[in-house]
Each structure stands twice: as C-alpha cells, then as structure tokens.
C-alpha cells in the first residue's frame, strides 16, 4: 500500500492504494464515482475513459499510483451548477444514448477530442475525424451514428454564435410520434444511472468462480481445504449444494448452478468463493483442487449427431445414443409438387460461426436475504423468469423472491436466461447471511455466451421462369453448446420464420439442435432466423441472376399481401414489405446504379421478417402477457408500474409516451417504475421483440381505464355527456369550452372522497395459429417487415470487403418515438455488419480463442458504414397506436444484403459467415481462372 494524493473532480483525495490497483477501481470502489464504467479491463472498449491532467486515458489500464498529484475529471464533473455540459446535452438531444453503458467513456473521449478537430475541410472530413477519434470506444447499441451526429453538432455550434442557435421547443402536449430522448437519458449521460455493478451494499462479500479447464470431464473430487484457510474467505460453494436444475424453457431444465458430477464445457463453474474482496476470492479459487477424469468431448455438429458408441453422452436425454438435443420437422403444401412446378431449382449449403451479443456491460448481480426473503439486483432482461427459476433452485415459495433490474447495459438476448451466477450469489448470501455480489470479467461473459448458434444448413428453392417462388425446403443443424437455453425455440425459428415475407405454398424444413461441449448458445437479436434468412435471401439473389430478373423486382413479385395467412397459418395483418423495399430502392437510386458501379463496388438487396412478440409465454401459464398498473394521486402524477425490462431499447419511455398520449398530458406528469418483481406486475420480459406490442398495449389499456375513471367522475359531478370530453394539452374540456378543466382540477374531482386511484391494464394475445404439433412456434399477434440495400467495396487483390452504405427500411407499424426506432435500426444494422464482416466465436479444442474485445471484433466507428434509416408506418390494427417491433427484425436483411452486394461487386457467392477476405480472394481468383 502506498499513500497517494490527487484531485478528482476538484476535490482533494489522500488515499492508501495498492500497487496493482488501477485508476478505474479506485474511482469506482474507493471514491464511489461509478459513472466510469468497466467493460473489458483490457483497454479494448473505452468505457472507462476519464481525463487525467486534461488528457483522455483508459482508467482500467492506468495504475492509480501513477496519478500522484494529478487532476482527474470523470463524467460526474462535466455538468456544472446542475446544467449539463453542452456536449452532454447534444448526446441527450440526438438520441446518442441507448443502454448508456458506453456513454460516460464516449463523452469523455469526445470532450478531449473536440478541441483537436479541424473544421476547415467540410462536413465529410469532420465526420471522418470524429469516427477516427471515437474509434477506440465500442458502442453496441447505437451504430455510432447518433453519437457522431451529437459530436458534430456540438463542435459546429461551438464555433458559431451561441445566440444564433435555434433550439426547437419540444411540443409538450404531443406524445406518440414525436422524437424524444429516453426519459433517463440525462441520468445516463451524467454517469448517475446505476447499473448492477454500481450498486454497493454494506457488508458485501465478493464472489469469484473456479471454472472448468476441461470440455467434458467427471469431477472426481473437489478439495477446498486450503482455500478455506485463506484469511478473508467466508464461504466456498460447490455443485452438490445446488443440485436443482433450471433453464429458461420448461422442456430444457438441464443446467445446474455449478457442475455437479461432471463438467460440460471449458469455463463451466465448478466452485464459487465468497470473500472480503475479489482479490482474496480469486486467490482462494487457485487453491481449490479439483480432480477431473476427462471423458470424450464433442465439439462440432458432426461429432454430436453420430452414434457415440460406449462413450458418455453430454446429457442423458433422448432415446438415441447421440448428442442430438432436439429434432423438429414441419411440412406445408407439397414440396414434391413444388419442385415439379418449378422451372429452376437450386440447392446451396451454408455455414455460420457463433456470434456473441457483445453488450458492453458485463453481467453483475448482488443478492441478500432479509425478512422478505431473497432480493437480487441483477442485469437481466427477464426478471419474471428469473424470479421463477430462483424460487425453484432456492426451494422457496415464489413470494420469497424479489428480482430487481437496475439500468442495464445492453442485452440483445444475452441477458434473457436465468444464470448460474445469479443462483450462486443468492445461495451464498443465504448461507452467510450477508449480501454477496459478483461481476463477470469480459472473458466470463464470453464463456457464459448464450449467443447465436453456429449453424449449418442446406436449402433448396424452386422458382418458375417468370419468377414465382414454388418451393422452399431447408435442412438445418445448429450447435447448441452444453445446455438447452432457448435452443428448442431457436431450432424452430430457424425453420418457421422462413414462411414469410414471400408467398410460399410448398414449404418445409427439418431442423435439429445438438449439444456440444462448448459454452451454450441461446437467443440473440433476430433470434433463430438470422442465419436461415441469410441463406434464403442469398439464394433468391442467385435465382434472380439465373432467370435474369432484377432481385428487387423478383422480391416485389413474391411478397405476401397484408391481411393474409402464410402457409403455416401465421396471421399476417399489417405488412410493409413492399413499401420498405420501394423506399430503399428509391433512396439508394437502385434502378440507376445497379450494374453501373465502379470496379469492385457492388449493390445488394435483401428483405426480412420477424415476430412482434411471441404469442405464447415461455413457461406455459394463463397469466396475461403483460400487466401494467397506473396510480394517479392528488399531485396529478401518474405512476406507471410495469414488470417490463428496459435494457437500453427505451421501453420505459415507450410506456410513458403511451400513457401520456391517452391522457393528453405532458411526460413530466408521468413516472415509470419498472422491473422489480415485488413492486411491479408481471410482464414476461424483454425477448422476442414483445415489449412495445404487449406491454405497450397493457399500458394503453390501463390508461384508457384511468381516463374512464376521470370521465366518470366529471360526468357525475358536472352532468356532461361523456362523449363530449376531450383530453389534450393537459386539459379536459368540451368542444364548446363550457367545461374546461386543467389536469389538476380534473384530478381533484376524481380524488373527492376517494383519494388515489389505481387501475390495471393488460394484454392477452388472441388465439392464433393451427392445431398441428409445432404450430405455436413463431406465432405472433403481428409481424414486422423490412428491406436493406447495401453498397460494398471489395478490394480485388486482398479480398477485403468494406461496407460503405446501408439504406434500410423497417415497418414498425407506427413509430411511437421515431428517434428511438431509428436508434434500434441503426444499432441492428451495425450489429449485422459485425456478423457479416468481422465477428465470430473461434474455438481451440472447445476453448474460446477470442474471449475479449480485442479479438472478438465488434465494428468500431471506422468500420461502420453510413447508415440511412427509414421508418415505414403501416399502423398495425392491434399494436398500441399501430406500433410493432423495431428491435430485432431489422437485423435480418442487412447481412444477406452485404453478401449479395459482394456478389454484385465481384461475382463471389458468400456461403459462410463471417465473410473471410481469404475466401473471397480465393474465389475471385478461381473466377478469373488464376
């Protein structure tokens, strides 16, 4: 320990600091300034950026002792006298903040960048300089576009006369359809929003895990004697203490908190230590001795489908002697017939590597027990399902569990399972009687995975010479890793979600998921259908070429209509396929440019389709999909309580917008309390793009009921016809203004002899779909549609592909908050670029090779193309104000559009993701006959 003095945000500190402590931990843990985030601890993400003596530094790799006498500025000090810094304001205004986890680091980087920008070379140069300047700060949500806009506007305005800036007064009274920042954006940009690892409780123990170093091995013994002797160690848990299985799906309760008798992947938790500090817990983990007997491991789909002879299966399930987890097959129409009717058929095989969500906030949780049972604050997308899983594993009634989701730094599906670490901290907290907290390292986040399944598929399509799709048949295998997770659903989605957006009378698929000894796969943005969509859209492109039809025209010819049914009995209501495709054709000047680009340049198109909320719950029950409570009290404020989980996609704001719209009041009169299973009614969570549609509808239902209460009380008192009352502009009035009440006057009337009024709204999906087995997969009360056109540049000597432009359009029904929808679209397309070009999970003998943000290549601002987002509104008949999803579906078209653009550029058909420069080059040479 050494004494150090420095100033942080103007205040002098004299601290004793360990030699190995980094500035980030000192700021967060000693000084309590948790606005500075830790995303990787290896200098690869920028979340921890602070200013030291006015220079941006990565605090996670800056030794604290280096900062003797330094002047340190963190995000918390940017706002002055309660006023945000102008750059912070720009971030808020422009919608540059989604989950907000990257935001503090991004803002600090930008603050130090802006004085160095050269403004004399035009906008394009400025944008490039900004991209370059923030290119070490990873953002997984925004696609950087709004961040860049915010910084650009800030510098341009800094250099103009401040009085000449006209700030658009935001219209107070309109809610739906108006672009607005998230309600918590300011808190996030100040570094004041608490994420799971920012919440510190008194007397907390810190937990670290010992993880398996074998992919498949029996655990012969675990000896914790030496580890327990280490001073500061309070508890060591092993698998036998927590034998109850759990899993997100009822049919896949196949995971335990820690390995019990055997380990199934490298990285599985074998023991957990709770100690006074993380360092002590880590040291103790090293002292635990585990004797393993390795057994034969299965690392690929091919390994796992075969009969395994006398070896041991990964799980003892299924009747066959192999590691197949789930098989499914559905057939509609007559595929043989379809093949006969087709003039041209084509069959292609594809391969996809695994993809990780790459959210910037690592998992973290704190659990404690008191007279109310268990409380856990954790980074989760699904408080409700975690609630159930915890009750099961802890063996307590449901009413002894409370799950709180604080601000969440991105999910994308990766925080939508109940996790071992959540079980473990809950367990140890019970055993020790103290709060126990854990935060995963980035490596552990990758090991936890639940990302997109590595997949292989062979798809056959048939088409007439006029361009009518006659048949689609897909044979799909997905590599699930060691446990079930969402896998059964993923298996189905790979197939069923191919039945739209095109008319198909003869459609079928066979899909199977295998267990392998690798970190498990699960749900990730665009769940299940991303890879198979890629295959189909690539084949359509190929067929268009064969029959010599423009690929856009071919798609336009085959789109399903609105208000129709698919061959698998999905009810299609609103459908903006056509508008979306026409829009991107127009915006990209497709007709004039296709086929006429410079050498190496290419344009590609693809379309997509996705569910807007799964119509069925994950765990079968008769609860409504979502319940929202509203409480209106004497002060005129409406409290929304909802179990839905804002994971950075803006769902809390969405709820507020809907309620404000129905009641005709300003957003300032609304307060959202969400995702606390004690205080908020059940919502199933943030998965399957369900929240806007389902929680939004529940909120609307509740707001209408509250409105009715107000109407009734006024009618009763004033004897006015209910139909005559208008709710707008914070007033309740009749057209002739005979009655004209302010909101608070109306509230007073409602409260008379009654006090606060609470109402409850709900959403229940209509009965949908067919009666056959598997009919439930992919059923949704509404579907979304979209299209992308992409321009790429391929270097014909290196094979490297650069995505230059993405023009995308997505039918979200109605954009309740257009800025938020754009943010989702831009983020989706950025993520798609990653999967297309650079991201992959690479293994060496079951061991993930690239488990950090240096080697797992999320596109930086410089790698992200210009994105042009277009919102298509089709006003869905059942969506709240016509809205449907925008969070996931948009990712589908962009990836195949990139691949199709590569084909257009250099004649190379991509059948493997990510696109490898090496493969492209090899094929270019083959095409040229070199």
């Amino acid at each position, binding site marked *: 320990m*050494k004494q150090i003095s420095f100033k942080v945000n103007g205040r002098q500190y004299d601290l004793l600091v*360990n*030699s*190995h402590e980094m500035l980030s931990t000192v700021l967060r843990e000693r000084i309590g300034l948790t606005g500075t985030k830790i995303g990787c601890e*290896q*200098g*690869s993400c*920028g979340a921890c*950026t602070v200013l030291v003596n006015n*220079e*941006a*530094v*990565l605090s996670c*790799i*800056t*030794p604290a*002792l*280096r900062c*003797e006498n330094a002047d340190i500025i963190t995000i918390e000090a940017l706002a002055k006298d309660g006023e945000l810094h102008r750059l912070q304001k720009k971030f808020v205004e422009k919608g540059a903040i989604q989950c907000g986890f990257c935001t503090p680091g991004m803002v600090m*980087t930008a603050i*130090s*960048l802006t004085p160095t920008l050269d403004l004399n070379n035009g906008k394009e140069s400025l944008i490039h300089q900004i991209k*370059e*300047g*923030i*290119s*070490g*700060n990873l953002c997984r949500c925004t696609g950087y576009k709004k961040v860049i806009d915010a910084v650009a506007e800030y510098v341009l305005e800094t250099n103009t006369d401040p009085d000449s800036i006209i700030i658009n007064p935001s219209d107070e009274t309109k809610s739906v359809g108006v672009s607005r920042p998230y309600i918590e954006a300011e808190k996030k940009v100040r570094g004041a929003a608490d994420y799971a690892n920012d919440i510190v409780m008194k007397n907390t123990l810190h937990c670290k895990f010992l*993880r*398996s*170093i*074998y992919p498949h091995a029996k655990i012969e013994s675990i000896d914790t004697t030496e580890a327990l002797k280490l001073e500061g160690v309070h508890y060591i848990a092993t698998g036998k203490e927590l034998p109850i299985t759990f899993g997100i799906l009822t049919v896949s309760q196949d995971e335990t908190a820690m390995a019990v008798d055997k380990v199934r992947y*490298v990285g599985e938790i074998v023991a957990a230590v709770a100690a006074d500090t993380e*360092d002590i817990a*880590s*040291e103790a983990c090293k002292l635990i001795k585990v004797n393993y007997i390795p057994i034969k491991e299965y690392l690929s789909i091919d390994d796992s489908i075969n009969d395994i002879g006398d070896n041991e299966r990964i799980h003892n399930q299924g009747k066959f002697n192999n590691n197949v987890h789930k098989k499914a097959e559905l057939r509609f129409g007559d595929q043989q017939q379809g093949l006969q009717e087709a003039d041209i058929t084509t069959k292609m095989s594809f391969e996809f590597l695994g993809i990780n969500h790459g959210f910037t906030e690592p998992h973290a949780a704190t659990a404690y027990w008191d007279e109310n049972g268990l409380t856990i604050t954790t980074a989760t997308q699904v408080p409700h399902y975690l609630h159930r899983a915890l009750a099961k594993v802890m063996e307590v009634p449901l009413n002894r569990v409370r799950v709180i989701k604080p601000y969440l730094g991105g999910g994308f599906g990766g925080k939508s399972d109940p996790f071992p670490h959540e079980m473990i901290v809950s367990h140890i907290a019970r055993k020790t009687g103290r709060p126990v907290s854990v935060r995963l*390292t980035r*490596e552990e986040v990758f090991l936890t995975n639940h990302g997109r399944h590595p997949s292989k598929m062979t798809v056959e399509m048939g088409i007439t010479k006029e361009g009518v799709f006659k048949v689609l048949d897909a044979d799909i295998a997905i590599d699930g890793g060691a446990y079930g997770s969402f896998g059964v659903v993923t298996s189905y989605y790979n197939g069923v979600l191919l039945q739209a957006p095109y008319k198909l009378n003869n459609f079928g698929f066979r899909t199977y998921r295998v267990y392998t000894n690798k970190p498990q796969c699960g749900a990730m943005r665009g769940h299940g259908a991303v890879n198979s969509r890629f295959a189909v859209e690539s084949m359509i492109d190929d067929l268009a070429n064969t029959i010599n039809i423009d690929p856009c025209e071919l798609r336009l010819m085959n789109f399903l209509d609105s208000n129709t049914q698919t061959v698998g009995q999905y009810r299609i209501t609103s459908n903006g396929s056509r508008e979306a495709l026409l829009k991107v054709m127009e915006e990209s000047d497709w007709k004039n440019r296709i086929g006429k680009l410079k050498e190496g340049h290419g344009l590609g198109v693809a379309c997509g389709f996705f569910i807007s909320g799964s119509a069925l719950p994950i765990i079968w029950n008769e609860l409504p999909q979502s319940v929202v409570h509203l409480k209106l009290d004497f002060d005129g404020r409406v409290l929304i309580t909802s179990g839905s989980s804002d994971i950075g996609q803006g769902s809390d704001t969405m709820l507020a917008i809907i309620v404000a719209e129905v009641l005709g009041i300003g957003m300032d009169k609304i307060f959202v309390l969400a995702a606390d299973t004690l205080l908020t009614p059940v919502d199933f969570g943030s998965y399957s793009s369900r929240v806007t549609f389902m929680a939004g509808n529940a909120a609307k239902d509740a707001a209408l009921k509250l409105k009715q209460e107000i109407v009734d009380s006024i009618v009763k008192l004033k004897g006015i016809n209910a139909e005559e009352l208008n709710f707008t502009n914070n007033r309740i009035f009749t057209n002739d203004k005979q009655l004209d009440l302010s909101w608070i006057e109306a509230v007073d009337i409602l409260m008379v002899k009654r006090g606060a009024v609470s109402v409850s709204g709900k959403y229940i999906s209509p009965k949908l779909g067919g009666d056959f087995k598997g009919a439930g997969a992919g059923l949704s009360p509404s579907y979304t549609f979209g299209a992308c056109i992409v321009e790429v540049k391929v270097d014909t*000597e*290196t094979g490297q592909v650069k995505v230059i432009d993405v023009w995308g359009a997505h039918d979200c029904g109605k954009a309740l908050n257009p800025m938020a929808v754009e943010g989702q679209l831009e983020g989706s397309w950025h993520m798609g670029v990653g999967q297309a070009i*650079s991201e992959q999970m*690479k293994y*060496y*003998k079951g*061991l993930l*090779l*690239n*488990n950090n*943000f*240096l*080697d797992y*290549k999320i*596109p*930086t*601002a*410089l*790698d992200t193309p210009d994105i042009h987002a277009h919102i298509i509104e089709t006003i869905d008949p059942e969506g709240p104000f016509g809205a449907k999803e925008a969070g996931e579906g948009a990712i589908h078209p962009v990836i195949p559009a990139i691949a199709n653009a590569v084909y257009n550029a250099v004649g190379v058909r991509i059948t493997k993701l990510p696109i490898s*420069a*090496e493969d492209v*080059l090899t094929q270019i040479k083959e095409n040229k006959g070199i």
Partner: protein
Amino acid sequence: MIAEQSYIKAKTIEQAIKEAYLTQGSFRFLAGGTDVIVNKFQGNETSQLLIDLTGIDALKHVVVIESQIEIGSLVKLDDLKKHKSIADNFPALVDAAHAVASPVIRKTATIGGNILCDNRCIYYNQTEWWRKAAGYCFKCNGDICIATGGKNNCLAKFVSDTATVLISMNACIEVVDNDKTSVIPIETIYTGDGIHPNNLDRTSLITAIIIPINKGDKTIFKKLRQRESIDFGSLMTAVTLRNNGSLKIVLGAVDAKPIIIEAKANDKLDEVIAEAVKKPKTINNDIFSRKYRKEMIGVYLKRSFQELGLM
C-alpha cells in the same frame, strides 16, 4: 492478478536504473503501460516491481540535431504528429504511430514502449485460466508451441508498428545502462525468439530514438488488420526508397522478429517480392491464416512499390 508487490515512479533516468539494480526480485520498466498492464491483467506479466518512467521529463524531448532527429523514448505516439520536424520528415512514422491501437491508447502509449511491445500469439495473449486450460506453451513456461505443435521454439509475432517503419528508415536507439550509453540500430535488438524477443539487458533503458534525415527518402507503411482501429497488425510492411536507389523493406507481424530485405530500385522487383514472401517464418498464430498473410506480403509490397513509382 495481484502480481507485482510494489510500484515506483522514477524521476530521473539514473533513479530508474538504480531501482532496477537495487531490487532483489523481478521488475519491469513501465512507460505508457498499455502493453504491460494488459499483460499483467492476463497473468503474463508477473514482475514484482514496476518502475514507472512517465515522470522522467528527460525522456520526452524531440530535437533536431544536424541531420538527425532525436525522439525521447517517452514521447507519446499521439504527440509525434504534433512535431513539425517529424511530420515533415517522417510522415510514414506518423502513419505507423497512428495505426497503433486506438486514439485514447495513443495518448498514453510511448514510442519506446512500442518498440519493445511484447511479441504476441493467440494462444499466449490469454488469461492465466485460459492458458492453464489450453496447456501452457513455451512462452509461459510450457514445453510446446500450441500454434505449430512444435517442440523447438516460440514464434510469437513481433508486432510493433513504429519499429517496422523505424527500421526501414535506419533508425537507432540510444540505450543507457548503469555505466554505459550506446547507440545501436533498432533492428539489432530483435532476437527472433518469441519468448525473449529483444536482447537488451533488463536494466537498460531506451532513452531516445534517433532517425537520420535523408532528404528525398520516401517510406510507405501498410498494415493488415481486421478492423480499422484497436487491432494489432496481422502484417505490417514498410518500404523505404533511398535517394541512392536502394530499398529497405521491413515486414512485421509475420515472424518473431522484423524481417528485413534490402534491394535496389532497379532490381527485378517481382523477385524481390518473391523473396520477401518466402523469408519470414510465419505460423498460424493470428486471426488471418499464415497463407493469407504471406500472400498479402506480395500485395502490400507491390502496392508500396507502385506508390513509390517503381512499378
């Protein structure tokens, strides 16, 4: 994780060296620390003492002395471009510095540290736990090279972007130890051994980088990587065309040391390229395959020659 026992921030060159000699255990000099600290986090850097050099002002100079420029080893990569003498005379050095890591890192990372940045391999730059699971390799006291399965040597790749350019420009470093100061060509410090990639004494400090100004020389730097920021190189090439028509080609990230090919502008350049492709001992220890990286040597050199007007 909790590796070093102590940390000292030296104020002078002499103090830094003295501390190095005084310490009983292992130690390491720390410049920006952007390489060392990450390695420490991963358990690959376990020195008991870190001697931080960032407080030594005598290492932060940039001066033009007659026909050479002397750059203090502690000059930050981001600052190089701000010195007109460097920007004017050695734009390729600025390019190379700019290609290192990410903008914020470059505000901490130093040129001296970059020259001595440790060699890398996908099987080595991993956490302690990971390496245990994979089985320790040569570079972490194991007895095998995982990348090749070989039992002979470690070929973890040399990765310094700036050194690649500096060597092609015939730069030297000034090295100070207890009793001596020497000036040596940079290229002579690299051993080709992935485990001990340089031959400097542990107690030696690089104090400065000295680059000759040869008016009319031209250098082209190129770097292969997957993303346009953050990433280490999978191949770097630097080609300097001298006034006298000689060519010095340096390849990085394809061998445990920088690979140097000397040629003449009027040589058969195709043959020069063929030689360059053949020379490095490249192995599959990177995200791009060995084959591709080798092939790209040819492409990058051809392009460099074209930019130099030679092809």
